[in-house]
């Protein structure tokens, strides 16, 4: 396989500085760096309560070199709507408003405000960096936590009992111009998606799988590899959806078995072979449904 020099493909703006407070191996700062590289300095970031509240640095420091508005947990999309309206009144329609929120702030407490903003088709870009639990407060389950996972509120004897909420499906159902999945582990794909989103108007949503070594119970250097395994095993397919109807895979998915992905993470270590088989069957069924959906809603050939 040929080597790709990421630096040649992605413009470098240095809008995320060193000295941020992420845990070792956290993918969120990389994700932010890639997103801001694509969006550029004319961007205002809204940060509701999430790991990035800490990562961005305490007052009077900030590791982001663009304006940042910290706000309460459930309010990212609403605050962004207000910023957007104010920018429009000020004659600044080209300033990007980026809402950067964790899975708890998106799947759970912030879902109402997100649905409201999406229904109004607010001209904002929303990135949910999903580490699959409330990591900042010490690894409690969220509705983004996958079935069978250990967290501090789903102990190994009674692990997570619900499947991960289909947030992309929910957002696509709003008929917004753009919804996609991505991960910092595939930086070119992610930057292409942000770049595409940037050129559009309306609510643009990106669901970013963001490995968390302390929460996933993996090595600090394993996160990105695990994210790639999640994609290649179809646990977390790389997708984009335009206007809620045109679904498309954005890369080849090898269809690797899920078991190695699960086994390398302490949060799944308690799983039996039977349970891993159950996960695999669910992945396969979901993949089939996805392919049918892509085919059914493919743009008619002209």
């Amino acid at each position, binding site marked *: 396989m040929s080597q790709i020099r990421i630096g040649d493909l992605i413009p470098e703006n240095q809008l995320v500085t060193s000295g941020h407070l992420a845990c070792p191996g956290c993918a969120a700062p990389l994700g932010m760096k890639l997103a801001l590289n694509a969006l550029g300095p004319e961007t205002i970031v809204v940060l509701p309560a999430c790991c990035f509240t*800490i990562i961005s640095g305490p007052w009077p420091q900030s590791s982001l070199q663009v304006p940042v508005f910290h706000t309460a947990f459930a309010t990212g999309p609403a605050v962004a709507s207000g910023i957007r309206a104010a920018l429009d009144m000020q004659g600044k329609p080209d300033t990007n408003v980026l809402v950067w929120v964790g899975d708890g702030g998106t799947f759970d407490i912030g879902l109402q405000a997100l649905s409201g903003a999406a229904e109004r088709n607010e001209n904002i870009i929303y990135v949910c960096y999903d580490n699959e639990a409330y990591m900042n407060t010490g690894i409690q389950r969220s509705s983004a936590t996958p079935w069978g996972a250990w967290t501090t509120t789903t102990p190994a004897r009674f692990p997570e009992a619900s499947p991960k909420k289909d947030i992309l499906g929910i957002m696509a159902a709003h008929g917004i111009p753009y919804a996609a999945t991505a991960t910092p582990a595939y930086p070119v794909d992610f930057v292409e998606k942000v770049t595409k989103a940037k050129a559009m108007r309306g609510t643009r949503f990106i669901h970013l799988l963001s490995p968390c070594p302390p929460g996933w119970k993996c090595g600090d250097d394993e996160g990105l590899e695990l994210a790639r395994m999640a994609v290649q095993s179809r646990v977390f397919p790389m997708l984009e959806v335009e206007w809620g109807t045109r679904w498309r895979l954005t890369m080849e998915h090898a269809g690797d078995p899920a078991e190695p992905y699960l086994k390398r993470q302490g949060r799944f270590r308690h799983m039996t072979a039977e349970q891993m088989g159950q996960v695999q069957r669910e992945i396969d069924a979901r993949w089939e449904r996805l392919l049918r959906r892509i085919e059914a809603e493919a743009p008619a050939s002209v």
Partner: protein
Amino acid sequence: MKKVMVGNHAVAWGARLARVEVISAYPITPQTQVVEKLSEMCADGTLAARFIKVESEHSAMAAVIGASATGVRAFTASSSHGLLYMHEMLHWAGGARLPVVLANINRAVGAPWNIWTDQNDSLAQRDTGWVQLYCEHNQEVVDTTIMAFKLAESLNVPVMLMLDGFYLSHTAEAVDVPDQEMVDRFLPKREAPYRLDVERPHAFGGLVKPDAYMEMRWMQQEAMREVPETLAAIETDWQRMFGRSYGAVESYRTEDAELVLVTSGTVTSTARAVVDQRRAAGERIGLLKVKMFRPFPSAQVREALTGVPCVAVLDRNVSPGHGGIFAEELRSALYDLPHAERPEVFGFVLGLGGRDITPAVIDDVIAQARAGKAPTREDIWVGVNP
């Protein structure tokens, strides 16, 4: 220009004359006419503003916070459960020192459901860092809405103004609508000293550790301390330009009074009528209208009530387990007076959930206050059938 309008439309006219740039709101009875009127104004172009029609009051307050942080003039209106739902973000606006203005149509809080007026909704927001101004009539509503922006933007504190649900929100009165050009001179376009601006990137509201959080609260408190003087100066300007002013408190016929009624909101007008009757009959009864509840105008209240033998506070609200909330605050303000000059304070709880406070009810209050040398309990409930 004189127009006949209900209180809710007076709010909308005030916001329009203040040239608000971003509005965000969610409908709730009895506030709905505010958002309906503002929607019409935005639609017909008489108000150049963006109106964000959000999915909840929590988001309404969040949206005006975002807009205000970006440097524009932002406005919202709510009532009762809507205001309670905003509570978290009211704190955020206060702490972030954003000059948002909110009109709250006072309405009782459930359970059980009740859509009529009392003040428990706004008084539950006492400690959120907002200035609170209670209006008596629709002229005061228009004027106060505009002055609220001037006050908020002078000190970077959010301001909420209150009007009684239905008694004011849905009652039509003649209002002298201030001239737009004069309002523009009084209240120029907002110049935000700090704002979200890609040319000058700053982070707002990030984590502050114990070594500095308290200093930020101190600065907020200092701004609150400046409110009475700043409001007085703003009202002086308003008086000069428009010939009207209201004051944080207003003493009405309190000279040589043996008994002073203390009121807020529309019951003030009823009490004025009762005071006039009693004065005509030679009785030494006066009235103190408390318009500003936060910051509590302790100095003005002390000045107005020092040496008055008896004070009867009419509270259209209650703090369960304590008493009427204005009475509590008033007692606290009077505590430092020398004993000989400190009034006996009778705290009356009445008019909850929209129960009418008629002249007869106020007569009953006066009779009860006169009957006892000192109150036998903190809260005397009027007209309740136990």
